């Protein structure tokens, strides 16, 4: 066995090479996700009674005509990559001032907070991914838990005992994490390109949104007690986000590539007729009473009655809307438009848009405090978080955070 014959043997091992999957295209997608996280720097969280956490993730969208960004995806043309670690910055709701920043692992992704509001879990990293627990009261960062590559969806179960992290770009995994011990359990193989996880209110089932390799999406139910995935439910193209009714009976999936919203009955795990909402939708929100779903499309927001699953007339909002949040009393939906930098309140009683509120440049994401008095808007271009006071709907002075905040989460 000389060098030539070894070379020949190695070539022989390559026989029967299967046709190539579109690696080049998918690596661009994965690369965008990686870059999005690499550009992401900091975040914000308050240590006071009503706390919030924001993580900077300036997302990209629309390259190759493919919506690549997650639910928090402004088009961002920044080219400077800062190679330092990511930061989580607390903001106190009472003073609207940033607190001492917390350093976490690189490339922050989604955040999930336990129902008791004590711990925030931050997904970050690329290959591999990590989940980092942060004690909100003290800002103490726990030991990171290793999870699969490209973490992209994180949710804590209603009992607060388990966090589910979805990861992967060609093979999907869901890693259950015990919040008591901060350890990862046996990963569950789910789909190929999972993007989001949501638990039913009773905590028996978790639904994982999978974008698939081709972009044709599906939703896979997981039995939380046994950790076994059920039969996949087909949805539309490039699904981005999900919203569940408070009674846990229906799950709505926004298919950004199909311009539809697919209702799924959790009783039968069957998809209903897709609801046409025009272009988009890239974000979705449900009223607290579960009667209406608002789907954010391109330039419009479509209200959907959950009783009949029929869309109402689209509500025009400015520019490129991309995030939405609804007040705890359900009276107002706030829609964030990246370009121009505005937030448009929509009265849910009449489904009419009110006068847009100017915020700092490059708004990306929005979260509303549990008391419904303040909405916080991360403004990535301005490196700031703009508070909006409710019900006056006036914007406060931007709260400066270190760099490009995007994702924001509020701890009760």
């Amino acid at each position, binding site marked *: *066995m*000389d*060098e*030539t*014959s*070894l*070379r*020949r*043997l*190695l*070539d*022989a*091992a*390559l*026989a*029967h*090479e*299967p046709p*190539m*999957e579109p*690696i*080049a*295209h*998918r*690596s*661009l997608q*994965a*690369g*965008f*996700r*990686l*870059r999005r996280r*690499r550009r992401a720097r900091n975040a914000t969280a308050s240590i006071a009674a009503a706390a919030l956490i924001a993580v900077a993730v300036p997302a990209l969208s629309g*390259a*190759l005509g493919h919506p690549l960004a997650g639910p928090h995806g402004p088009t961002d043309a920044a*080219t400077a*990559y800062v190679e330092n670690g990511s930061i989580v910055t607390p903001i106190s709701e009472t003073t609207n001032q940033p607190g001492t920043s917390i350093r976490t692992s690189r490339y922050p992704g989604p955040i999930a907070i336990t129902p008791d509001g004590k711990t925030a879990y931050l997904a970050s990293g*690329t*290959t*591999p991914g990590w989940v980092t627990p942060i004690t909100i009261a003290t800002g103490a960062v726990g030991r990171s838990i*290793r999870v699969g*590559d490209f973490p992209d969806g994180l949710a804590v179960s209603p009992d607060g005992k388990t966090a589910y992290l979805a990861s992967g*770009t*060609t*093979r999907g995994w869901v890693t259950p994490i015990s919040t008591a011990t901060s350890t990862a359990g046996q990963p569950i193989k789910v789909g190929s390109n999972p993007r989001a996880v949501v638990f039913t209110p009773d905590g028996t089932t978790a639904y994982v949104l999978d974008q698939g390799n081709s972009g044709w999406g599906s939703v896979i139910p997981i039995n939380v007690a046994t950790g076994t995935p059920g039969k996949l439910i087909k949805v539309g193209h490039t699904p981005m986000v999900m919203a569940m009714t408070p009674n846990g009976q229906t799950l709505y999936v926004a298919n950004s590539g199909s311009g539809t919203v697919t209702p799924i009955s959790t009783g039968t795990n069957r998809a209903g007729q897709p609801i046409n909402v025009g272009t988009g939708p890239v974000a979705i929100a449900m009223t607290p009473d579960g009667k209406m779903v608002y789907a954010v499309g391109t330039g419009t927001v479509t209200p959907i009655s959950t009783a009949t699953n029929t869309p109402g007339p689209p509500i025009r909002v400015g520019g490129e809307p991309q995030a939405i949040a609804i007040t705890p009393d359900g009276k107002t939906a706030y829609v964030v438009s990246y370009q121009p930098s505005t937030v448009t309140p929509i009265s849910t009683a009449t489904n009419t848009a009110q006068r847009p509120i100017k915020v700092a440049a490059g708004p990306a994401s929005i979260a509303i405090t549990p008391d419904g008095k303040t909405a916080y808007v991360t403004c990535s271009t301005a490196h700031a978080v703009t508070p909006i006071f409710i019900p006056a709907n006036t914007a406060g002075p931007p709260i400066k955070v270190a760099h490009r905040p995007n994702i924001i989460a509020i701890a009760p």
Partner: protein
Amino acid sequence: MSSEEEFANFAAAASPRLRRMAFLLCGDWHAADDLAQTTLAKLFVSWRKIKRQDAAHAYAARTLVNTYLADKRLKRNEEILTSKLPERSIQLPAPETRIVVLGALATLPPKGRAVIVLRYWADLSVDQVADMLGCSPGNVKSQSARALGKLRAVLGDIRTESGSPETHGKEQRGAGEIRHG
């Protein structure tokens, strides 16, 4: 041409070879696709820097091998994935050769396997491999000697198992001819 288009062109050109190298490292075409894709995604992030250095292909191979090794370090206990063999009739080497070689490669530790693939398939020199893996040339030599010994033990009687004329004659020349240097 935009930076993204440039990258897309590079990725299209580089991916077949990267994928094959990945397959020799991990022995599974699906895992190879994953590995090649992860590698390209990593390259994309630093693309501006890499393309200036005019060594994108070398950098890609380095990233691939190190991604593979990092993965092995972290997932040491994980089973190696095996997929069903695709049904496609090509007249080239007898299927037995392929299976025997893959089986032999699977007996190697990750680093030894990487050394074999880089040196004898990618035709890199000891110094290049050492540079790529971040270890000394001496370490590369000892790794390849050990890995070759192991391969020889498994592949020594490959000619009796496969009737492939491609490998038959060479095999009979015996095991002692590989240069370890």
